């Protein structure tokens, strides 16, 4: 049976025959590196994934699995650039409102059925449907699909969504407003196709290993909740002949130190490096300890709403506190994992973003401290009238270390009295969301590789703007950016406004800090979103 299907497939795919021949020699077809006999990639995940249903999944570890099991219209390559997935390409209309994707005819589901445009239509309607109640309905709205908001609100039927199957291999998508990064959004799990017949047959149980049918390079073969999930090569995948990794195992290990021990014992190919251990590990294992920039920021936000302290309404106070933070100490001595210091809200690693040359970034720390003292005195705070406030963060050892360092810096340099308070995660979110705080920790990871995913957070209308910062000029720049051809100068200007007004204190930008077995080939360190595909990895013979 298997040989039969393989033979049929190779007959269909004349191009893949060459690649198949190269693989038979057990060397990588492009790099020529010798390949290991056992092509199993095993990695650690912090927590059990929420789901492997593409329209429902909402966490990173779940999305990683879904990206292997399902294939969307477009994929990302090692640098995060768009490459064809199920779609061989797309055309966009002159008004940038209609996209037409051409799907490859050879794409099939793991049960042999062809992947058609209707599978995408079904999936996208499903994602928007209030009946499924996916937490990622907002993503369908974010995509600006025609009628998306009305469907989510229950005012229209899901069938009204702006997506149509012109024929089996042509998908038409209609937007309500132009969205420069729309094609990138088709690499997100929410937009992956779903097998209608299987979903309807098994209902919520369709993602169980015994039921699931998928169209990606892998199929789910085993799932032991809170322990492991296993995905194995999908022989039916259209590009199967170019897939090298046979099996991918995700092990749930909650404790990062235990995970590191198990990595050392050879049970894992990849694990996270616990905070502070990177310098030691990179010295002992220079080939294995790696660090690269990620699309996430770490900041403290002032409460600028009516319930916030009067002192923070003075820009000089905000600037003084931001200036007095010695980011070098936090990055080098506390985190020590190669994280970049942050002087802008948006990480410099974001595509098409040029950080402005802000005044603060160019100064020495001594000058910053001196200026901070001056500004604070101007605002009327000093030894006679010390500034005092409470800063909150969610309970975690790493956040506590940063908070203690910040409060000490402010105490020593400015005589400011910042009291620390930590809260359990859900309580923290609730309090911060209701503006029951003075200064609060925040962090954000980009949903897509574009500066607006960060800058939108401080839009006065944004639901994520917990500090309630409001600036018309800033909002206007973001509005303009939605339709502009060149967004780079607009985003740079927006960051300049933030640097001048300092509604948040950027502390650092995240880095991916891993122990990665040196026999893992082609890990996409340059993909700042860390959207990795197991089908592009390989194991080198040791």
């Amino acid at each position: 049976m298997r040989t039969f299907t393989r033979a049929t497939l190779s007959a269909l795919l004349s191009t893949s025959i060459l690649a198949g021949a190269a693989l038979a020699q057990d060397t990588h077809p492009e790099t020529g590196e010798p390949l290991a006999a056992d092509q199993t990639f095993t990695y650690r995940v912090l927590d059990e994934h929420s789901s492997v249903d593409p329209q429902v999944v909402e966490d990173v570890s779940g999305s990683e699995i879904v990206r292997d099991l399902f294939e969307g219209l477009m994929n990302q390559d090692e640098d995060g650039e768009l490459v064809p997935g199920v779609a061989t390409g797309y055309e966009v209309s002159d008004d940038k409102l209609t996209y037409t994707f051409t799907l490859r005819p050879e794409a099939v589901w793991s049960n042999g059925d062809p992947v058609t445009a209707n599978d995408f239509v079904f999936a996208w309607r499903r994602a928007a449907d209030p009946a499924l109640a996916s937490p990622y309905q907002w993503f369908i709205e974010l995509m600006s699909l025609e009628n998306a908001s009305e469907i989510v609100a229950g005012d229209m039927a899901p069938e009204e969504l702006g997506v149509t199957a012109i024929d089996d291999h042509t998908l038409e998508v209609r937007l309500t407003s132009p969205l420069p990064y729309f094609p990138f959004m088709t690499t997100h799990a929410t937009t992956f196709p779903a097998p209608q017949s299987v979903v309807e047959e098994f209902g919520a149980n369709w993602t169980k290993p015994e039921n699931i049918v998928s169209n990606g390079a892998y199929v789910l073969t085993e799932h032991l909740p809170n322990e492991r999930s296993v995905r194995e090569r999908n022989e039916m995948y259209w590009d199967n002949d170019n897939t090298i990794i046979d099996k991918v195992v995700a092990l749930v290990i909650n404790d990062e130190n235990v995970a590191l021990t198990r990595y050392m014992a050879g049970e894992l190919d990849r694990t996270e490096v616990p905070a502070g251990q990177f310098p030691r590990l990179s010295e002992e294992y220079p080939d294995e300890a790696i660090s690269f920039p990620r699309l996430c920021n770490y900041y403290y936000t002032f409460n600028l709403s009516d319930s916030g302290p009067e002192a923070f309404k003075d820009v000089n106070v905000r600037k003084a506190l931001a200036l007095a933070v010695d980011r070098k100490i936090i990055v080098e001595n506390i985190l020590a994992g190669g994280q970049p210091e942050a002087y802008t809200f948006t990480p410099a690693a974001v595509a098409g973003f040029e950080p402005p040359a802000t005044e603060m970034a160019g100064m020495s720390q001594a000058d910053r401290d001196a200026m901070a003292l001056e500004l604070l005195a101007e605002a009327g705070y000093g030894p006679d009238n010390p500034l005092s406030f409470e800063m909150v963060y969610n309970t975690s050892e790493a956040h506590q270390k940063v908070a203690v360092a910040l409060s000490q810096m402010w105490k020593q340099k400015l005589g400011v009295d910042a009291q620390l308070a930590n809260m359990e995660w859900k309580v923290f979110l609730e309090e911060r969301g209701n503006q029951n705080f003075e200064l609060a920790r925040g962090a954000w990871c980009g949903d897509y590789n574009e500066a607006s995913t960060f800058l939108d957070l401080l839009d006065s209308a944004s639901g994520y703007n917990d500090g309630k910062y409001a600036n018309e000029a800033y909002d206007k720049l973001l509005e303009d950016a939605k339709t502009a051809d060149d967004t780079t100068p607009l985003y740079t200007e927006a960051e300049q406004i933030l640097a001048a007004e300092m509604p948040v204190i950027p502390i650092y930008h995240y880095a991916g800090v891993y122990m990665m077995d040196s026999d893992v080939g082609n890990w996409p360190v340059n993909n700042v979103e860390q959207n990795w595909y197991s089908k592009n990895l390989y194991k080198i013979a040791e």
Partner: protein
Amino acid sequence: MTAYIIRRLLIAIPTLLLLVVASFFLMHTAPGGPFTSERPLPPEVLANIEARYGLDQPLWKQLWDYLTNIVLHFDFGPSFRFKDRDVNDIIAQGFPISLTYGSLAFIAASVVGISLGVAAAIRHNTWIDYFAVSLGIAAQALPNFIMGPILILTFTLWLGWLPGGGWNGGQWQYLVMPVIALSTSYMGNIARITRSSMLEVMNSNFIRTARAKGLPARTVIWRHALKPTLLPVISYLGPVFVYVLTGSVFVDLYFSTGGLGQSYVSSALTRDYAVLLGVTILYGGLTVVVNLATDLAYAWFDPKIRY
């Protein structure tokens, strides 16, 4: 006796009901809900989700629906966090795992603990006594969250004998470390309680009488001393059995065993109401049954107790 058991089981029903109601309201008073997230959901999306899980209903209605579903369909509802699974699923998958290593740890702790305690008492003030006491204290001083990492470092990294975690259907290699980590501190306690109880029993009149009759030491200990010695141990063991199951969160955390302990704690942190309530009911029911079993064991060990 049968009437007593039936009566106790009937009392369990209102007890569990009270437990559910109290947990339900406590749970809802905790700030934040299952769908509070760093990325606040747009109100229309949140409304859809709450409607799907019935969270838009008044609390009393939610509680009523929850209880009727359990009674009529034995359905504990969907997990709010793990969208592909429901509570019945989660318990059916996690509880056998917790029960397996929990029972093994319980047996290991009881057998080794009681043996150590008895050995220490009958060889009172000899090197065996000192050895058993030191071992007991050491075991007691090593809670499972310390034992876990130490064991993994020793057996996985340095010696390379055992896999560092996982379950794999409960093969013995995967069981060794969880069982040791979970049992040691209870083992120490059991040894200490057994030893002091045995010392007391050995000094009592009926033992002196037994000895005076000329019975061999072995018979005195096994037939006459052991049963009364174990009475205080039994009353300690009852709660321990429930503890090894509920307290197994550290084992799940360090050894990725996939048991229920980890699901329980994380359901509280993520406000996964249905899982939290479901596991609470399970553990509540278990406590009731174990307490009853302890009381019945009393009657067997102590002829003075009759129901």
